[in-house]
C-alpha cells in the first residue's frame, strides 16, 4: 500500500518535471474540429456531436490526454456540402484545429477532402460508408465503419457458407448506398456472381412501397434475398416476403437492423429468422437496457452514458457508435504522446490495435500504414423473434 503510494508520488514528480521541462510545447491544448448536421435533413445524427462534446469534457475532467486538455469545436453544416466547406475552413483557418474528427456524411466530407489534404489537417474517422475513405491519394483522410464493400464481402461469405446452390435476388435503393452494396456483392461473389444473382430490382427513395419489386423478385424463385434498403422499405419488404409465402435466406443490410424502427414495424414474428452482419453489439441486444448490464462492455457504456450524457438515448445506435468513435480518437491521442503534428496523428491513426466494449466480441479496430480501414470484421446475427443473436463465427473482409 505504502509502496504503491510512493510509486504514485514518484510518478507524479516525474510527470510534473517532464511537464515543466517541456512546458513551451508540451502543455499545449489539442483542438479538435467537427462538422455535424445539427439542423437539416440528417439531424437525427446530431447526437454524435453532443456525445463527443460530453466525451471530451469527460477526458478533460480526468486530466486530459497526457496532460493536454482538449478543446472540441463542433459546427453545424445542415448536411449541405456547401456549408460544410465553409465550416471546415472556419475550423482550420479561424479555430486552428489540429484535426477534424468524425465529420458526418458522404458528400459533406468528400467536399472538403482535398482541402484538408492540401492543408495537411487529418480528417479522422469520417462517418460515411463509401469505400472512398482509404484512397492513397488522400493520406490525411481515414474512415472508420466497415464500408459497403466490406459489409457485402461478409454477406457473400455468409451466403457461400450456408447455401449450397445460391440463387440470389437483390432489392436495393437506387442511390449510392444501394448501388455500392450491389456492386460490392457482385465483386465479392467472384466469377460466378452473374450466375448466382438471378434477379435485381431497385426502388426510388420516393416510392410509396416496394411491394411490386418484392413480387417480381419472388418470381425468380431465388433462395437468398438481399434486402439492401433503408428502414421504412426494409420493413415493408420483410412483411411482403413473409406474406407472399416466400421463405428465402433473408439478409438485411446493417443500416436497417433496428428492432424498434424496422422489425417491430414489419412484425416481430415475420422478422424471425432474418440474418444480418453487425459490428455493433447494441443492435443485438433488445430494447431493455437492464439486459445490457449482463454484458461487461455494454455496461461500461451504459454507466458512462448515465454519468456523462444523461440526455442521450442509450439504445440509440448512433450513441453507441459515437462512443466507439470517441474511444478510437482517445486512443490515437494517447498514442501520440506529446507530438500532435499532423503526420504523427496520421501515423498513430494508422497503427491502431484495440477492442471496444460496445462492439461485437472479437472485433478488433486495427489499422496499419498500408491498411486504412479500421473496422473490417463483422459478426453474423440472426433474429429469433425477440432479439438479434450471434449466428456462427466472426467474418473478416477478404
Amino acid at each position, binding site marked *: 500500500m505504502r509502496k504503491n503510494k510512493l510509486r504514485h508520488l514518484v510518478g507524479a514528480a516525474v510527470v510534473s518535471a517532464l511537464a515543466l521541462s517541456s512546458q513551451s510545447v508540451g502543455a499545449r491544448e489539442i483542438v479538435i474540429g467537427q462538422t455535424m448536421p*445539427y*439542423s437539416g435533413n440528417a439531424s437525427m445524427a*446530431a447526437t454524435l456531436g453532443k456525445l463527443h462534446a460530453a466525451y471530451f469534457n469527460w477526458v478533460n475532467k480526468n486530466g486530459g490526454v497526457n496532460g493536454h486538455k482538449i478543446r472540441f469545436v463542433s459546427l*453545424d453544416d445542415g448536411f*449541405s456540402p*456547401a*456549408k460544410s466547406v465553409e465550416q471546415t475552413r472556419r475550423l482550420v483557418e479561424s479555430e486552428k484545429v489540429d484535426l477534424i474528427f468524425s465529420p458526418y456524411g458522404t458528400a459533406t466530407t*468528400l467536399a472538403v477532402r*482535398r482541402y484538408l489534404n492540401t492543408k495537411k489537417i487529418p480528417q479522422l474517422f469520417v462517418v460515411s460508408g463509401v469505400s472512398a475513405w482509404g484512397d492513397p491519394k488522400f493520406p490525411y483522410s481515414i474512415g472508420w465503419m466497415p464500408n459497403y464493400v466490406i459489409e457485402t464481402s461478409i454477406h457473400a461469405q455468409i451466403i457461400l457458407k450456408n447455401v449450397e446452390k445460391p440463387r440470389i435476388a437483390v432489392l436495393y435503393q437506387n442511390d*449510392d448506398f444501394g448501388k455500392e452494396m450491389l456492386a460490392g456483392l457482385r465483386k465479392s461473389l467472384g466469377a460466378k456472381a452473374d450466375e448466382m444473382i438471378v434477379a435485381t430490382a431497385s426502388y426510388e427513395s420516393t416510392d410509396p412501397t416496394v411491394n411490386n419489386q418484392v413480387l417480381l423478385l419472388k418470381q425468380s424463385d431465388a433462395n437468398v434475398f438481399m434486402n439492401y434498403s433503408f428502414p421504412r422499405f426494409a420493413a415493408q419488404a420483410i412483411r411482403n416476403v413473409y406474406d407472399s409465402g416466400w421463405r428465402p435466406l433473408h439478409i438485411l443490410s446493417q443500416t436497417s437492423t433496428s428492432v424498434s424502427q424496422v422489425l417491430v414495424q414489419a412484425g416481430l414474428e415475420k422478422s424471425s429468422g432474418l440474418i444480418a452482419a453487425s459490428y455493433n453489439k447494441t443492435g443485438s441486444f433488445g430494447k431493455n437496457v437492464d439486459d445490457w448490464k449482463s454484458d461487461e462492455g455494454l455496461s461500461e457504456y451504459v454507466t458512462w452514458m448515465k454519468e456523462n450524457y444523461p440526455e442521450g438515448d442509450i439504445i440509440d445506435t448512433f450513441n453507441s457508435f459515437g462512443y466507439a468513435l470517441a474511444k478510437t480518437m482517445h486512443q490515437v491521442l494517447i498514442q501520440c504522446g506529446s507530438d500532435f503534428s499532423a503526420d504523427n496523428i496520421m501515423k498513430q491513426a494508422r497503427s491502431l490495435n484495440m477492442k471496444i466494449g460496445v462492439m461485437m466480441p472479437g472485433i478488433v479496430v486495427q489499422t496499419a500504414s498500408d491498411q486504412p480501414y479500421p473496422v473490417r470484421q463483422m459478426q453474423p446475427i440472426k433474429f429469433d423473434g425477440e432479439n438479434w443473436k450471434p449466428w456462427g463465427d466472426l467474418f473478416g473482409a477478404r
Partner: protein
Amino acid sequence: MADKVSHAQNTQSSRSFFVAIAITTAVAFLFPFFVGDYYAYQATIIINLMIALLGLNLLTGYNGQVSLGHGAFLALGGYMMTILSVHSGLPYWLILPLAAVAGLVVGMLFGFPALRLQASYLALATLALAMAVPQLLKHGSIESWTGGVQGLQMERSPAPFGISDDKWFYLLSLSIGIISYIVARNLTRNRIGRALSAIRDNPIAAASMGVDISRYKIITFGISAMFAALSGALAALASQFTAPDSYSLGLSILLYVGIIVGGLGVLPGAIIGAIFLHFVPHLADAITKGAPGAIFGALMIASVFFFPRGLAGVFAKLLAVGRSKNIKEP
C-alpha cells in the same frame, strides 16, 4: 422656392451619396488584404448570396412572381461551372458568362408556363422544381457527368498577380456583384422598372396602359434566373465542388426568407438578406446545438414582426429621418 431648395438638397445628398458609395467600394476592394483568407472566403459567399437575392427580389419584390425554387437555378450555374471545367476543360472566366446565358434561357423557358399560373400556383410549380432538381442530379443516367450523390470536384487555374486564390475570387465575386447591383438598379429605375411594379400592383391597369405583361414577366423570370445561375457558378468556383445536397429544397426556401427579411422590392434588401442568411444560422448554432432551427425560426419571425418592411426598410427610414432633419435646419 421650395422646389429649388429641395433640388439643391438633392444634388448635395446625391453627391454625398456617391462619395459614400466610392468609399464603401474602395473599402470592399481593399478588405481582403487586411484579413485572413477565411474571411475573404466568407465575404465571397455573402456576395454570391446577394447576387441570387438580387435576382429573386427583381422577380418577387418588383414583379410579384413568387418563386420558391430558385435553388434550381443556382444548381444550374453551379453544375455548369463544375461539369464544363471537369469534362471540357474550359477556363472559368468563359464558363461564368455561359452560365449566365444558360440561366437567362432556362429562366425564360420556365417563364412561359409560369405566365399561366396565378401567384400561389406559381409558388407551387417552382417549389416542385426545387424538390425535383436534387433528385434529378442524383439520377443514374447522368451520374457520369454529375458525380451522383457524391458530387463533383473541379480544378481551377491559380489566381494571377501573386495574390491568394481566396482573395482573387473574392475580388472577382465583388466585381460581378457590383455590376449585378448596378444592372438591377438601372432596371428598376426606368420604364421597365415601372412596368414591372405596375404588373405586380395591378396587372389589368398595366395592360390597359399598354404594358406587354407576358413579355415583361418572361424577361423578368429570365433575368432573375440569370442572376441565380451566376451566383451558383461563382459559389461552385469558390468552393471547387458541387453536390446535389447543396441545392436542397431548404436553400430555395432560405433564399425566399432572405428577400422577405431583407426587404421585398428594395434592392439593398438583397445585401442585408445575404448577411442575415449567412450569419444568423451561425448565431443559432452558437446558441444551441439542440435545436438551431428553432432559434433561426424565432429570429426570422422576430425580424419580420418588428421590421415588416424588411431590415432594409429600417435603414431607409433612418435615412429619411436624417434627411427631414436636414431640411428643417435653418
